[in-house]
């Protein structure tokens, strides 16, 4: 091959091989994500916030192909704006999740992105919906991304129904930290978004602020 091809990562697809989590608590939800975006072996963005707003009190967590995930999130953001204007009030989390599911299902052969939707509305309080492969299911907590495999056991063991806000935030940060230390495609900083009836709180945990475990 005589042509100049450039470095390998220029021709690799950009993926958010990642860890994303959403956990419901009494009165709201906490969403969390890592911040690594990789193209092959290269980290092209080490500080990307994968928690994307769909509406005032509804966020989604992105995983899979970065382009696909971002496009779905922007499309649903627009659709929700129109919908809430027609309604004259804030949309339900279920509606947002259904819009995400519709796109994921209709284009399931072409897209490779998984979005977890979490938010608060007046009717149902805090809710988490998973939309993997175009299904729609409400769950007390949802995991996604390549790093999620390593922490299913931990979250199964530690999740308690009806936990409070700070306990749930700590659980999400601990889970993210464990996944980021085991998954090569997850890393960087941890972003947290907490949504309840009073509003939205965004937090960042830098590398040295993350909890460490026995072998670190």
């Amino acid at each position, binding site marked *: 091959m005589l042509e100049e091809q450039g470095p390998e990562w220029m021709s690799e697809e950009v993926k958010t091989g990642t860890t994303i989590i959403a956990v419901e608590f009494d009165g709201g939800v906490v969403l969390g994500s890592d911040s690594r975006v990789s193209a092959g072996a290269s980290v092209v963005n080490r500080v990307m916030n994968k928690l994307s707003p769909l509406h005032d009190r509804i966020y989604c967590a992105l995983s899979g192909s970065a382009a696909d995930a971002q496009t779905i999130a922007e499309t649903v953001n627009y659709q929700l704006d129109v919908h809430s204007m027609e309604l004259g009030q804030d949309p339900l989390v279920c509606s947002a999740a259904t819009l995400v599911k519709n796109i994921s299902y209709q284009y399931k052969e072409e897209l490779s992105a998984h979005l977890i939707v979490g938010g608060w509305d007046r009717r149902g309080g805090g809710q988490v919906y998973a939309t993997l492969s175009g299904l729609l299911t409400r769950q007390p907590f949802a995991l996604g991304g390549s790093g999620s495999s*390593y922490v299913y*056991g931990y*979250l199964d063991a530690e999740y308690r129904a009806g936990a409070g806000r700070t306990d749930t935030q700590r659980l999400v940060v601990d889970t993210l930290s464990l996944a980021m230390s085991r998954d090569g495609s997850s890393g960087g900083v941890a972003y947290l978004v907490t949504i309840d009836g009073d509003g939205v709180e965004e937090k960042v945990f830098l590398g040295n602020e993350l909890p460490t475990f026995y072998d670190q």
Partner: protein
Amino acid sequence: MAAAATMMFGQEQMVSSNNDMAPDWTSKEVSTGTTIMAVEYDGGVVVGADSRTTTGAYIANRVTDKLTPIHDRIFCCRSGSAADTQAIADMVTYQLGFHSIELDEMPKVETAANLFKASCYRYREELTAGIIVAGWDKRRGGQVYSVPIGGMCVRQQVSIGGSGSSYIYGFMDANYKPGMTKEQCMELVTNAVSLAMERDGSSGGVVRLAAISESGVERRVVLGGQLPKFFTN
């Protein structure tokens, strides 16, 4: 239907062929898609495993014993192809037994691990075997050696393996601490294997445990109804 096959000249006659009538697992290899683990404590080791052996989607054995004794105080946990791991374990049992008689001494766990490594590395292209070797000897006490697919050998304080292990890396990182007692290790292993069994389709059945120390081997089984209960959807 595929059963009504047409005879063509030159076509090989098959005694049994995979037609639509036979379930697909009749042509799948038997594998211990599994969850295995071993933990060191002061004075010995605790090994644990699930009990499911699958051929495709069929569970060929739901009460398998994947904790195989290699010598009086040395066990191995088997994952991967059931045939490959049984064959390797039998070979190592013979080799180690012979070596122990020659030396007139109890064999070292490191020796057993190296014997596994020798076979797994030499035949790495043909084998699918992920093995954890654990036991007690008087030189170094309780030891755990991991011999994963590919044939490397490394000593670790805690080792997990098999398809179900992916789901409990986070749990183990968070809950293992050096300096635990035997009972704490038993509980940790039981909890970890249960969590993995809950999430991994290839793991299930009962949890088998063995605690190996200078005084002997204590075996336990935790049956389905007695498994620890965690939150599940």
